[in-house]
């Protein structure tokens, strides 16, 4: 079982997530694309863990999951707070600091 297909899949998913972050306007979908990127890196970490024959990659992937969970909780709370004041979940509307 070679490692290259897994890494290529990971790269493709990461790229899709990155393009999503650049193009989408809904803050929730933006967050989902960030999650997609984190998951793609997790796949690469798990693959490298198997290639090198030790569990360090899996431990790192576990830490990435913990950080992702914390990040999502705080990020969604920020989205809810912004929605409560501006009635919108679009990232373009939160531009008050620009002026």
């Amino acid at each position, binding site marked *: 079982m070679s490692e290259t297909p897994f890494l290529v899949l990971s790269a493709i998913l990461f790229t899709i997530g990155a*393009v999503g972050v650049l*193009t989408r306007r809904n803050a929730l979908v933006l967050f989902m694309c960030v999650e997609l990127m984190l998951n793609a890196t997790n796949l690469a970490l798990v693959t490298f863990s198997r290639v090198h024959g030790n*569990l360090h990659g899996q431990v790192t992937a576990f830490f990435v*999951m913990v950080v*992702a969970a914390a*990040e999502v909780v*705080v990020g969604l709370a920020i989205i809810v707070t912004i*929605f409560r004041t501006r009635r919108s979940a679009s990232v373009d509307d939160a531009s008050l600091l620009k002026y």
Partner: protein
Amino acid sequence: MIAFWLLAPVMVAAALGVLFARKAVHAALLLAVVMIGLAVLYLVQEAPFLFAVQIIVYTGAILMLFLFVMMLVGVDASDSVVETIKGQRLFAIIVGLLFGSVLVLGVAQVSVGAVVGLEAANADGNIQGLADLLFSRYAIAFEGTAALLITAAMGTMVLAHSERLKPRLSQQEMAAQRMRDYADSGKHPGPLPAPGVFARHNAVDTPALLPDGSTAELSISRVLAARGTVRSAPHLADDIEELTQHMHDDGSSNIPGRPDATPKGPLEGDPSDRRDDGEVQP
């Protein structure tokens, strides 16, 4: 490897669906497909603990949190297609394609040597091996994640908590406000008219008729009016006309759809009287 080749196209398609889905709910469900696929790939790659964590934490907790927030923010909130920066979307796609092709080509050409496999590392079991590392070499980082999680929970509670800005109005104050509105603008101080009570039909989507035959706008919910599902009075009148016509044609007062609605015996009145009583089923 069969699992990989089965799952990889599905996962890429679902990820592209996240990218192109107009509605946030569809994006979330497609992301769930990607995450479950990743979980299976972890299992294939000898990481059963991460398989379980991926299902429980990502698909079970994080995505459900996404869906809950979507319910708060509004399920229908679809993305706008208006570009705020001209050409930004096109450039983003070009940059993404370049980045992706460079990354894929680079990754595909690199050789990292023979695959060792995890048989030796997983000899005592995957979870035991992970615990060995987590509580020895990564103990400080583990403590750090504990602090991070507590901070995140506190921060979320602070952010999501909303103070009441104005004191709650008492019943007396609300009554006084209603009387003030009546004095200022003539707004009726009593309750709103009920739907359809004067229009022979008491469903909520039928507006009440005023004495001059016009409809009372206040008697129906604004939501129904916005959706355009309000039944108009002339339309209803046609229905009633049809029903009563039917009653007169066959001489009985049996309304279609209500076979046993007519009382038998001396209670039965003249069919022409029955035109004016009660409700008429649509």
